[in-house]
Each structure stands twice: as C-alpha cells, then as structure tokens.
C-alpha cells in the first residue's frame, strides 16, 4: 500500500549530485567555446595585424593605391582590394535589392499559399547551393553571355562577379524580407483598403514602410554576405588588384586575395604572410559592423510587433 515511510523523509542534500554537476560543467564548457572562438578570432587578427603594422605603416596600408605584396618593389596599399570588394558588393546589391524586395512583396502580398509553398523552397534551394557552383555558373554561363553583349569585356571581370553574387544573395533578401512583411499585422492592410487604397498603394505606402526595419536588416545581412563571399568572386573576377571604375576589367577582392596567398606556398612569418591577417582583420571588422547594425535594427523591429 502507498504509505509514506517516515524514515525516507529527509529532504537534506545527502550527496552532491555528481552526475548532474558533471553534465552541467560540460554544457558550460560548450557554451564558453563560442566566446573563446570570438576571442581567438579577434586576438589572432589584432596581434598578427599589429606585427604587420610594424613593417608597413598604417597610412600606406589604408591610403596606398597599389597592392603589390609579393613582388619587389612591394607596396601595401589596400585600397585596390577594398575597392574591388566594393565594386562587386555594390553591383550585387544593385541587382539583388530591387529584385529581392520585389520577390518578397510577391511572396507576402500576392502569391497564393500554394504558390508560396513552391516558390519559397525554390528560393531557399537557390540559397543553399554551394558558392563554388556559382563560380562555375559565372565562368561558363554569365561571362560568355556578357562577352556576346560587350565584346571588349575581359575573361575575368567585376561585372560577372557582381551578377553572380547578386543572384546568390537575392534569396537571402527575398526570404528575410518576406518574413518581415508577413509580420506586418493584417489589420494595417485592412485599414488602408478600407479608405479605398489599391493593392499597390497598400503595399508601397503601408506594408513596406511598416516592415522597413526588417527589410533593411535583410539588405544589410545580404551585403555583409556579399562582402565575405569568396569562391564565386575568386573564380569570376580574377586576381588582379586594380583600382578602376570599369566593371569590365579583372579585379581582386579582399577575399580572393586571401585565397590567392593561401593557395601559393607563402612561408609563415614573412610580411606577405602577415598581409593575410591584416586583410582578414579589415574584412572581419567591416562585416562585424554591418552585422551589428543589422541586429540593432532587428532588435528595434521586435520591440514594435511583439
């Protein structure tokens, strides 16, 4: 029978729960790993960049217009790499932002649920394709196409890279903006329709402004991805540090420079090897700042609708 044995009534801690303690310690260690990773990245990049700047003056690095790290006479002006990255990023953004936003609007405002259930996974599939495949696509499809239109374009060129990166980041913008637009309360739309607005007016004057912070965050996230994008750009844009306004010429981005150096057998310790960390540090901090801004925007967005 169910009796409560009084001998069993102590609620004192008899023995420490060792198993529980060990498991909890393991979980804490795992969680600490993420902090250690960040710390390791920051320390590594800062320390190695510091020794780089012992050899090269910061003013040469940040304002120099020639990037000749390996050959003599060497020159370490990062502007050509930074500009190359910007060219590809701006080009990609010009393609992906309007098209991505239009797709998001279609998905959230116009598409039927059935249509959505087909199109959205297709876009996510597009986002899941490895970047090296996009590099292949740029070289074997986009560049030949461009060469038919502009015969003067080089085999490796910024335009092809910008287009392919634009295609790559488009799904990011489309799916994230779609989420943001769908979070706009239905009552807002109905209020606008009730005063006689057309669907175009409701979308552009009510829905998009209401979801704007989420939409902006998706743009920033996509731009940060474009800046960090490596393989497609390396394959499509070539390896020529080049401070040019032309999209038809071969350029080099920060990421493709890093790939180039690590593919060649640059010995550890030299200035050329240190450039790796200086360029990576620049890349890391640029993307970090953009990501933080986008998170701040999203945070505000959450406060509005939760």
């Amino acid at each position, binding site marked *: 029978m169910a009796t409560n044995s009084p001998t069993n009534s102590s609620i004192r801690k008899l023995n420490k*729960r060792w*198993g*529980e303690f060990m498991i*909890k310690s*393991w*979980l*804490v260690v*795992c*969680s600490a*790993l*993420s902090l250690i*990773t*960040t710390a*390791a*990245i920051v320390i*590594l990049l800062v320390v190695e960049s510091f020794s780089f700047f012992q050899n090269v003056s910061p003013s040469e690095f940040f304002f120099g217009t020639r990037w000749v790290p390996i050959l003599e006479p060497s020159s370490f002006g990062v502007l050509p790499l930074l500009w190359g990255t910007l060219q590809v990023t701006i080009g990609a953004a010009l393609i992906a932002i309007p*098209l991505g936003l239009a*797709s998001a*609007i*279609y*998905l959230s405002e*116009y*598409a039927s649920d059935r249509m959505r259930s087909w199109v959205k996974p*297709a*876009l996510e599939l*597009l986002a*899941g*394709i*490895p*970047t*090296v*495949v996009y590099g*292949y*696509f740029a070289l074997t*499809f986009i560049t030949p196409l461009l060469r038919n239109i502009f015969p003067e374009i080089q085999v490796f060129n910024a335009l092809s890279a910008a287009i392919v990166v634009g*295609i790559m980041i*488009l*799904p990011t913008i*489309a799916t994230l903006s779609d989420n943001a637009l769908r979070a706009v309360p239905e009552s807002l739309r109905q209020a606008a329709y009730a005063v006689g607005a*057309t*669907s175009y*007016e409701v979308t552009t004057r009510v829905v998009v402004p209401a979801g704007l912070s989420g939409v902006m965050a998706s743009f920033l*996230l996509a731009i*940060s991805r474009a800046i*960090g994008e*490596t*393989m497609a750009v390396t*394959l499509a844009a070539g390896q020529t540090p080049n401070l040019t306004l032309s999209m038809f010429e071969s350029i080099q981005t920060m*990421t493709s420079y*890093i*790939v180039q150096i*690590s593919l060649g057998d640059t010995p550890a310790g030299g200035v050329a090897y240190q450039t*790796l960390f200086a360029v*990576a540090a620049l*890349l890391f901090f640029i*993307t*970090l700042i953009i*990501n*933080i801004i986008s*998170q701040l925007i999203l945070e505000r967005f959450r406060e509005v609708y939760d």
Partner: protein
Amino acid sequence: MAFSSEREKLNLRKRHARARGFAFLCALVTWSSVLILGILLFQVCIDGFGWLDWEFINSFPSRFPDRAGIKSALVGTMWLISLVAAISIPVGVSTALYLEEFAAKGRLSKLIEVNIANLAGVPSIVYGILGLAVFVRYFALGRSLISGALTMSLLILPIIIIASREAIRTVPMSIRYAALSLGATRWQTTWAHVLPASFPGIMTGVILSLSRAIGETAPIIMIGALTFVAFLPAGPMDSFTVLSIQIYNWVARPQPEFHDLAAAGIIVLLAVLLLMNATAIYIRSKTERRLK
C-alpha cells in the same frame, strides 16, 4: 464637391492599372529568380552528364580529363562530414541546451547569445584563417582532416546552436514543470522530455548546417586541403581533398574539358546535398508521426 466624379474615375483607372502592373512585375521578378535556378541546374546537367559514370566516381584525379575522377574527393567529403558531425552536434546541441534550460537569463547568457549571432555572420574565410593559425600551426595538426573538421565545426556551430535553440523553445514549459514537480533534476527533465520533443527540429537544423559544411570551399582551401590527391585518407591525421575543392580546381583551369568535369562533380555534390536534405525531411516526418 470635393470628389469630382469624372476626374476621380479617370484617376482610379490609372491607379488600378498601376496596381496591376506592379503585381505583375513582382511576380515576373520572382519567377525569373526561379528560372535562374532552372537555368543553373540545366547548364550543369548539360555539361556534366556526359562525364558522369562509374569510372568518374571511382577514379582519382588526373592530368588527363578523360581519366580524372572524384574518388578521393568524395571519400574526403564523407570523412570530413562525419568528423564535423561528431564534433559539432554534441557541442552545438549542448550549448543550445545550456542557454535554454540551464543558464539564468542574465547578462552572461545575453552576451553569449549576441556573440553567437555575430559568429554566424563572420565570413567563412575568416574561419579558414583561424583554423590555419590555430589548428594547422599552433596545435600542429597539419593540413589534415582533423584540422579541416575542427575549422568547419567552428563555422557551423552558430547555425546548429541557433536552430537547436529554436527547436528547444517550441517544447511547452508545462512539460518541463510536470517532470520537475515529480522530483526530476534539470538534466533528467532535459534528457527524457525536452530533447526527445525537440529532436526533429534539432535534426533538421543539424542536417542543414552539415550541408552548408559540405558546400563550403574557402575555409578548406585556407587550411590547405590538397587539390591533387591520388590516395584515400585512412585516418583523421591524413591529408585530404573534398568535392568542393576538386570542383574549384577544375573550374579554375582554362581547358573546357575540365569545366565539364567540374559540372559532373557539381552534379555529384548536389546529389549528396539532396540526399541529406531528403534524410532531414524523412527523419522529421517519421519522428513527428511517432510523437503524435
């Protein structure tokens, strides 16, 4: 009259036309994006199918296109992904469990949370540099599978953690309270109730992260996977190559034959990814049915 009916009608017709045009434009753009996906797949298949046969799968890379294959890359990818899974799943899920089930909602857990969100946005090539400096050189693991797996694990950990946390959060609090009120410890509650209930969601997140790891190229190039490997790795300390590197290597060559080889490699890569995603969907549907 504030609304002149004639002008209003004309105006309204214009507004309707604009609305229809806009809707059409948005639809057109979306379908073009899907079309691009179609073109991409079509292009790859056209170029690659001719080269895709058992010999391609079962041969080592070669200077001669018609003798080259992806055996070492395919085996290397399998090795890498198994190691990455073995490292990243326990660590990632543990972190998610700690943050959701154990950590007090204070400043430290907020810091870890923000930190993980930022790590998810770090360019993959930066992880490559970290792996090169820490695993390859500092821990002297060399340009080995284990270096690659550790690097790749760091890269996908934030994604696994974020996805797992979302899955864990869907488990209702009432289940936890029920278990705790029976005199279960936190871990007993987590192990017996929270984990099983969030398992399908966690698995989906894990498999999506692993597919990302399969497709990543840049970090593996950084830690120095070889591009020409005519042997199979026998253990975690061996050097290796993976599918994405092999594809990059072929695409980067000027000869069109190698481009076609790359296309064939891409078909294999996409097939592996498709297989993994299908597994995710299968696991999900199966466990969901069991829970119901």
